[in-house]
């Protein structure tokens, strides 16, 4: 059952990704992207990462994508997509390089697979499940986040603040 759901999500995700790349209109690409993000969120659920799945839908598919949509509509980009994709020699070259990358990734993932991962998979999964059972889905993430990784967390907050200020300064029309 899980495999079937995974394949379903995977097909939608890859299809959406291709849609992003080939979509003629920015809005079409954006909608494909949302489909991809949603299916990846689904796959997160399959991996028992419920909190991240929720965040994915809320923040990514919700907030960030809507921000993109606002910008597309603000700039009124719905029409100028005649020469958007670079076909020809460049396209072939890019395909070759990307194909090679895909090959390298395939080699890496297939060759090692799950056995290449250090540690006992079943034990780690059981440990995560135990923590989730004890602290809840959010608590399992929040606990290390606010203890072991609190400095990184605070720095991320600072980064967001800087980004907000930068965005305001950049987007503000110069008078």
């Amino acid at each position, binding site marked *: 059952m899980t495999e079937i759901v995974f394949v379903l999500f995977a097909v939608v995700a890859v299809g959406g*990704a291709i849609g992003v790349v080939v979509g003629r209109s920015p809005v079409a690409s954006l909608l494909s992207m949302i489909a*991809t993000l949603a299916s990846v969120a689904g796959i997160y659920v399959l991996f028992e990462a419920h909190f991240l799945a929720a*965040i994915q839908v809320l923040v990514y598919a919700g907030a960030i994508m809507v921000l993109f949509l606002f910008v597309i509509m603000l*700039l009124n980009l719905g029409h100028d997509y005649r020469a958007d994709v670079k*076909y020809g020699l*460049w396209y072939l070259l890019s395909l070759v390089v990307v194909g090679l*990358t895909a090959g390298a990734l395939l080699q890496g993932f297939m060759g090692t697979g799950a056995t290449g991962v250090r540690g006992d998979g079943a034990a780690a999964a059981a440990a995560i499940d135990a923590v989730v059972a004890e602290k809840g889905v959010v608590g399992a993430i929040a606990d290390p986040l606010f203890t072991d990784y609190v400095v990184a967390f605070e720095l991320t907050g600072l980064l967001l603040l800087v980004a907000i200020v930068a965005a305001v300064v950049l987007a503000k029309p110069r008078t």
Partner: protein
Amino acid sequence: MLTQALLLSGALFVIGTLGVMVRRNAIIIFLCIELQLNAVNLAFVALSRYTGIEGQLFVFFVMTVAAAEAAVGLAIIISIFRHHETVNVDKFNFLKW
């Protein structure tokens, strides 16, 4: 299921890479970059099932950075558009030597 997830992650990543290479619309390039980030996130989540909760934490941080990046990047696109009336990256070569 880990191998499949990693393969899916790789597929999403290369598709995103291709998009960055062949598209001219800055916003779509941006979307493709987000796609790449998502591919990596997927790999993190899949692997976290086998190594520990830290993988999920990293996804959290990646999302934050992506959000910050989207905010700043879109602001830059708006700022450039205001000057050049286009988001075609081929026209943006004014930082060239």
